[in-house]
């Protein structure tokens, strides 16, 4: 479904009218293709933030993105940059090769929690441990969105999903995997932060984090990981507003927000 495309088109029209000023528009790096995401889904918002940063930094020509398997598998349909669509979980391996062979390019992976934290955890840990010099945008929505709401490694304890119908049991399935904390422990990371996009301030902070992480690539100091707590209103069976509230009030208790590592040093 499309979330921001229609209003954007409307503002673009409005801007053509004399006396009006465009205060909100789509960055040149984001294509006008209607997005397939559910209404109110964080994916569309994070796509836009990432593309805004790339447009503002003027690095469209020098950026290569790696899309995952998950709801954002079609990221390359929306982002107007060169992209590769990786096999489920393998984005960090794909990005490793791209960045190693073209060290002057900006490279990022965009991955969900099933993709990165379950099937792709080995590729992620090893890429980070090698200090691969790219950005990992990690969308943590606590479920497998694309396959309709199964349990993920990040599913909250007790949270109901289609494969944990009585609530996630720690005895059977372990506890929510704290990817940002794990990755911050590895010497290969330069910048690790956890953000969300549940309110206007949080959106601004997330955008700042993305920019900081991409700028850090010039330093060649190691991996940057921006974990973003996201919603999945469709599979959580909530309205977009309820789901954002859930992110803000409940998810953040298991996954505290903030910087975990800055300039290669763990934050206190």
């Amino acid at each position, binding site marked *: 479904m499309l979330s921001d495309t229609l209003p954007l088109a409307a503002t673009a029209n409005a801007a053509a009218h004399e006396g009006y000023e465009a205060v909100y528009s789509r960055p040149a790096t984001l294509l006008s293709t209607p997005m397939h995401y559910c209404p109110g889904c964080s994916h569309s918002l994070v796509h836009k933030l990432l593309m805004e940063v790339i447009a503002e930094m003027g690095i469209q020509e020098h950026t290569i993105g790696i899309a995952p398997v998950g709801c954002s598998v*079609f990221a390359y349909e929306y982002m107007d940059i060169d992209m*590769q669509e990786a*096999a489920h979980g393998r984005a960090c*391996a794909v990005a490793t*090769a*791209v960045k190693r062979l073209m060290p002057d390019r900006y490279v990022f992976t965009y991955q969900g929690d099933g993709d990165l934290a379950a099937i792709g955890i080995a590729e992620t840990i*090893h890429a980070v441990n090698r200090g691969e010099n790219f950005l990992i945008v990690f969308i943590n929505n606590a479920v497998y969105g694309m396959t309709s709401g199964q349990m993920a490694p990040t599913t909250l304890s007790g949270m109901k999903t289609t494969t944990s119908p009585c609530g996630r049991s720690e005895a059977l399935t372990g506890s929510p995997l704290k990817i940002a904390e794990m990755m911050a422990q590895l010497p290969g990371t330069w910048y690790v932060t956890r953000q969300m996009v549940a309110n206007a301030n949080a959106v601004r902070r997330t955008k700042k984090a993305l920019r900081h992480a991409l700028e850090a690539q010039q330093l060649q100091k190691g991996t940057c990981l921006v974990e973003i707590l996201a919603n999945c209103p469709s599979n959580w069976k909530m309205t977009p507003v309820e789901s954002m509230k859930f992110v803000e009030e409940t998810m953040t208790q298991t996954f505290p927000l903030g910087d975990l590592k800055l300039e290669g040093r763990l934050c206190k």
Partner: protein
Amino acid sequence: MKGNEALAEAAIRAGCDAYFGYPITPQSEVLEYLAREMPRYGRLVMQAESEVASINMLYGAAGAGFRVMTSSSSPGFSLMQEGISYMAGAELPCLLVNVNRAGPGLGTIQPGQGDYFQATKGGGHGDYRLLVLAPASVQEMADFVFLGFTLAEKYRNPVLILSDGAIGQMMEKVVFDQAPVPDIPKPWATVGKPAHRSRNYITSLHIQPEQMEQHNLRLLEKYKAMQEEVRFEEIATADADYLLVAYGLSGRIAHKAVDVARHRGLRVGLLRPITLYPFPERRLAQLARQVQGMLTIELNSGQMLEDVRLAVNGRVPVRHLGRLGGMLPTPDDIVHELENILEVQHA
């Protein structure tokens, strides 16, 4: 030089930009040789954390337009199949090497040809084919690297060198006399989108069935065009009234068997497929008009046998002689089998 080392050296000389691999016997020499030699040429060599990672690194590098290779042996090669399927789907050129050991499972590190079906019928999921080259000597281990890169880039398709533990480990003289494979433009590569062109993306996803079918049909056209790359070697077929069919290591053994059989007055020839896909089915169909029967020699329980039978389409009986588990037939075993078959046929 060892077969595996000859292959590695050829990769450098052919202009391979990057190699990704994971240790496994009997092919670890490839990674070891390249780890030592490749950085001197400013090329990238990486030991990945698994074969899954290797093949996906290969995907990324090939998608960015680089000339790339990975190698493994049977269990590791099985682990790569999903990634190979993605590369076939996304039409990424690359050179794959499987130094076949005997299986199933962990099996043994001795040579085998049990991966023939996996190599020639797609191997991973979905409907795709690899071009498959089967070297029978250390020289061919080297030569097929040049041929492999050339074909991979010509067809935008993965090419597989299907070797085995014996060819990989044996020492023979090898001559490197080929120039690097010429670069061809790769306008589809993801290197960063300049303002004047639309974005490039590498994907194997076509969610609409109509589009997926169109993509499948396009791949099919390509596989049809690849048929002209068929290659094989014939030994003493001109007057043969019985034919051996064998590739790779068993092709070498069968060649010796032809010499022994001829010495004993048997008019036996050999067809050695060099490409296992495309398969020399036309030539086999022709020979089926000339010979009384065929015998495949394989280090498996009868896999290429099925392709030979399809090619001759019932015109002559096709039998199979195989050793399993890393054991090899001797030329005498083959001649003995031939004598039995011919005796029965004449009786």
